[in-house]
């Protein structure tokens, strides 16, 4: 589908997030981040520990304040000071799923309360009966039995608890879900179940996902487009297959080369690339966020853009392990 025809659900425009220490210069966690998320797609955001990927998610749901830039939801600005009505709409329409289902559920509350907590906050139900019906439906949607509502979180396995976490988001009837490492702390066999559940829900409810992860292999499976973030800056963004078949930025290439592939023949032969930030000479020629190919963005200066364009013409030279899979 051509991009112009697609409806933009979320837009970030030069967003900057800072954390202030004691009297020192503020720490810039996210700088000049711009991207759009289209309705109905899964947008992957990949980066290492401390790269700012979670902070971006938190800035969208208004937990972290932005220092500069704008965030739009359906064309309406949602960062900074906004009206109460819009705040309520954002709370309802944008939901989060967290990494560790062992830590993110209130141990002392029953599932019934945990799932309907969001509804209580926005008074999103007519009467007690309506609320119960909504909880039941949310639990069924994520493959749990309605009876589970009267139980406590400790009675569930990790995979079931993550389903509770998803039910809690679904009950708000969101349009946009930020899934922050939703399967990282789960066992291999459970991961597949949760990934399948997320894609079923997307199909049935037309949800849009921001999928935050450090695991490129999972992102490749689930995301339509992927952005790679390094030290608070997005260095490359492209459709998933394009990013994996022709990564341009040296950081993306290093990251891709480091991901272990479950195939001994490939894995034992592969070359790991190391990213050295000093390979960029940005002293005079400053880097810009550039669309180098249709929908393929990269952070580069003029010299690098020329070089990357050459690479796109000669894909052989890029020879990376993912092309072999």
């Amino acid at each position, binding site marked *: 589908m051509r991009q112009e025809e697609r409806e933009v659900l979320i837009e970030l425009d030069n967003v900057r997030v800072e954390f202030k220490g004691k009297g020192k210069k503020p720490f810039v966690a996210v700088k000049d981040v711009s991207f759009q998320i289209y309705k109905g797609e899964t947008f992957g955001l990949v980066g290492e520990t401390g790269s700012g990927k979670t902070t971006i998610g938190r800035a969208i749901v208004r937990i972290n304040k932005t220092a500069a830039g704008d965030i739009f939801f359906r064309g309406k600005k949602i960062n900074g000071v906004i009206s109460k009505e819009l705040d309520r709409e954002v709370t309802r329409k944008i939901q989060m799923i967290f990494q560790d289902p062992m830590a993110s559920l209130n141990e002392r509350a029953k599932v019934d309360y945990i799932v309907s907590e969001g509804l209580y906050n926005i008074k999103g139900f007519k009467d007690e009966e309506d609320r119960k019906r909504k909880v039941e439906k949310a639990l069924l949607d994520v493959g749990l039995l309605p009876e589970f509502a009267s139980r406590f979180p400790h009675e569930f396995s990790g995979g079931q608890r993550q389903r509770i976490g998803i039910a809690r988001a679904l009950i708000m009837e969101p349009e946009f879900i930020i899934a922050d490492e939703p399967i990282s702390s789960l066992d*291999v066999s459970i991961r597949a179940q949760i990934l399948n559940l997320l894609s079923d829900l997307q199909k049935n409810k037309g949800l849009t996902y921001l999928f935050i992860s450090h695991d490129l292999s999972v992102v490749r499976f689930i995301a339509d487009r992927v952005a790679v973030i390094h030290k608070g800056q997005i260095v490359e963004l492209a459709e998933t297959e394009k990013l994996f078949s022709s990564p341009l930025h040296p950081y993306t290439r290093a*990251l891709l080369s480091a991901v272990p592939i479950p195939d001994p023949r490939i894995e034992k032969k592969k070359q790991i690339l190391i*990213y050295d930030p000093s390979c960029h000479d940005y002293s005079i020629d400053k880097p810009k966020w550039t669309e180098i190919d249709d929908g393929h963005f990269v952070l580069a200066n003029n010299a690098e853009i020329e070089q990357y364009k050459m690479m796109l013409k000669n894909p052989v030279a890029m020879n990376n392990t993912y092309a072999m899979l």
Partner: protein
Amino acid sequence: MDEPILSVRDLVVKFSLRGDILTAIRGASLDLYPGETLAIVGESGAGKSVLTKTWNGMLDANGWVDSGSIMFEGKDLAKFKTEQEWLTIRGSKIAMVFQDPMTALNPLKLVGKQIQETIELHQGLHGEQAKKKAIDIISQVGIPDAEMRYHQYPHEFSGGMRQRVVIAITVACNPKILICDEPTTALDVTIQAQILELIRNLQKELGTTLVYITHDLGVVANVADRVAVMYAGEIIEYGTVEEIFYDPRHPYTWALLSSLPQLGVKGEPLYSIKGTPPNLFVEIEGDAFAPRNPHALKIDFVKAPPFFQVSPTHYAKTWLLDPRAPKVEPPPIVKSMQSKYKEYAI
């Protein structure tokens, strides 16, 4: 093949939990050969860590070896009782690297001192000599400015650097067997690749036998010579890394490989294993995987299968390999791995 360096036979490990008895290892047998890298894979609770903890006396206080033997250098480790006995093995002969480098180090002690401690304890060096050796080892594990790093505290190190320090401490005693229990799970992929490389180089240099415990099959493909797959306290299949990835025979191994997103086809649902692992508090009848196994035969629910030989190095514990069993085709992902393997062979 050489004589095994460590030989586990019919090991049964039990734990007492609030009056109930849990059987964590249900008769596992395993040989470890000198200089090789063995990966033990399986879900959490399969008994991977428990199995290796019996080799250096690190079982929790409520656990014990119920029966079976662990032969190492002519001694049966399963019969060890006192801490005194274990001190002759732990660290110096069989050492362990844990998952979380944040908690493995003493935050109040200089990093260098912590390495020096092990050297003094195990190698009989003292004072300046031990310090010099500690600095050597710090640079050996790839930490620059070893001299300066010796005088720093753990909080001044990043996660990857701390894991290097932990590895430095373990190799300081030059152990025969090094057990790495999820050594890179807490680290970023780029750091993970560096740590795996470091361990591989140290192994080449020192001739250590390596055991990796991991649930990441990508890491397994990278490091292992041989693989053992565990399920519910048993080893259910083992073979060379190529045999396990390209010609697996046990339905559980099929299921594990099929559920990997790396091998999945986009837009199609991933294979997922139905149900949950069995309750180890009760006696398991028949094959432990049978209730979750779409290919389970009637006999699976009655009698546990023995090991069937696939090749001289490859064994699997499933009735499907019995000559009387019906022929079952492996799932598509496993088949595509097989055909890919053939492509490379040409």
